[in-house]
């Protein structure tokens, strides 16, 4: 997005700050508190540039070694034999999103055809199906209890459907509208309970919602364009989450204050997917610039790039294996590349899908991973 759109966009959000003064963390009074009243726009711009340079210098000072150098003595990984073990067929159009249930066998997936399907991945049976009132259901998520799913897309909403044990019951009747954005819903995730949902949207914001009341609990402003993805920190590491967007930025947020606490801008195009490293101290991203990258949160910088000259199509979805040693990336060239996270090399390339891979998640116990594709199918690999 060029400057002028970004400025208009930020002005729009500023007017929201001005009008509803009790839900957002930065008020106009606070913003002016530390800044002298006679500071002009050009002074602030100069300070802004100085701070950006300072930030880069501080980060560079601590850049004493590369990750793959630290990993030189680590044993290389052998051959991987991973194959498609299950193919889930039933969607009538592109699969856009998927999520695993905590029971390690059920999967929810959503599609351009407006359908959300719950599968038993062991047997490949469909257990539930819901037809959404919109097409392009870009986001879906399983509730931690396994008793509900959330989904949304072009309807600009995130809705929760309790899953009934009675297969004949019409799930759409019990639907609860939770989140309302002013543009498409790109991703959603329950927090560590069924009671709260985190959403990201084409309107440039993320938001935290109470499921029962539909109330907005916290709003996260800072991206200058569509937010495409989010991931919650592993529960042990506290109340943060990461988001990635069309502004090429990956942001780390404090869930309680709504503050952006760290920001990374090294990708050269849209960030389609972000995922925390299992320890919570780092995260990976996948981008339309055909690279995946690893950012360490304590070093506050990018520490690895996973790329090859032969890979020229965007990475749409990434996830780690249980130990964090492997990074799986689904790409727009229909393949899945498997990377050695420490050494920075590719260890395997998986073929099978007949169109773009759009979603990829490792199962909760790490025994398999599932990929969803524009070829209408999902595949479980192990």
């Amino acid at each position: 997005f060029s400057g002028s759109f970004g400025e208009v966009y930020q002005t729009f959000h500023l007017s929201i700050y001005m009008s509803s003064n009790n839900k957002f963390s930065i008020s106009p009074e606070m913003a002016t508190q530390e800044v002298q009243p006679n500071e002009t726009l050009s002074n602030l711009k100069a300070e802004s540039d100085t701070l950006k340079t300072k930030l880069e210098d501080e980060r560079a000072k601590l850049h004493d070694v590369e990750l793959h150098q630290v990993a030189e003595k680590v044993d290389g990984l052998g051959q991987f034999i991973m194959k498609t073990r299950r193919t889930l067929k039933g969607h009538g159009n592109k699969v856009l999103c998927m999520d695993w249930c905590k029971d390690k066998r059920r999967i929810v997936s959503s599609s351009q055809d407006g359908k959300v399907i719950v599968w038993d991945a062991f047997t490949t049976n469909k257990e539930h199906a819901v037809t959404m009132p919109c097409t392009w259901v870009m986001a879906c998520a399983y509730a931690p209890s396994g008793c509900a799913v959330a989904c949304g897309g072009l309807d600009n909403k995130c809705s929760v459907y309790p899953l009934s044990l009675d297969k004949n019951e019409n799930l759409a009747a019990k639907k609860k509208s939770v989140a309302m954005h002013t543009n498409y819903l790109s991703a959603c995730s329950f927090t560590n309970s069924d009671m709260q949902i985190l959403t990201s949207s084409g309107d440039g914001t993320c938001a935290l919602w109470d499921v029962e009341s539909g109330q907005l609990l916290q709003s996260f402003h800072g991206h200058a364009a569509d937010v495409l993805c989010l991931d919650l920190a592993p529960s042990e590491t506290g109340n943060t989450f990461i988001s990635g967007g069309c502004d090429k930025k990956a942001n780390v947020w404090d869930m309680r204050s709504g503050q952006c606490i760290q920001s990374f801008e090294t990708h050269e195009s849209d960030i389609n997917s972000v995922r925390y490293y299992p320890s919570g101290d780092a995260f990976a991203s996948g981008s339309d610039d055909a690279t995946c990258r690893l950012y360490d949160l304590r070093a506050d910088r990018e520490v690895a790039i996973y790329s090859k000259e032969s890979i020229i199509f965007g990475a749409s979805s990434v996830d780690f294996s249980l130990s964090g040693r492997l990074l799986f990336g689904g790409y727009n060239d229909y393949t899945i590349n498997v990377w050695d996270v420490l050494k920075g090399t590719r260890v395997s390339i998986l073929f099978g899908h007949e169109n773009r891979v759009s979603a990829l998640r490792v199962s909760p116990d790490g025994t398999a991973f599932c990929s969803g594709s524009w070829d209408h199918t999902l595949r479980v690999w192990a």
Partner: protein
Amino acid sequence: MSNNSANSSNLVIAQKAVKQLRLEASVRRIKVSQAASDLKTFCLQNAHKDPLLMGVPSSDNPFRPPKSCALF
């Protein structure tokens, strides 16, 4: 929107941006060597528990045996 209120909006936006950058610049950081070493240690300590990394025998992995082995 009048010119004056547009100017003051831009000013508040710039103030907000400067405040955000000050916050980000003040983050406490560790050296990459330390961070990388910790990432490596985590991987190695957890490697034995990682089924996709180690491979598990087909009998232990619910996805490995082909569906046609089901007895029913």
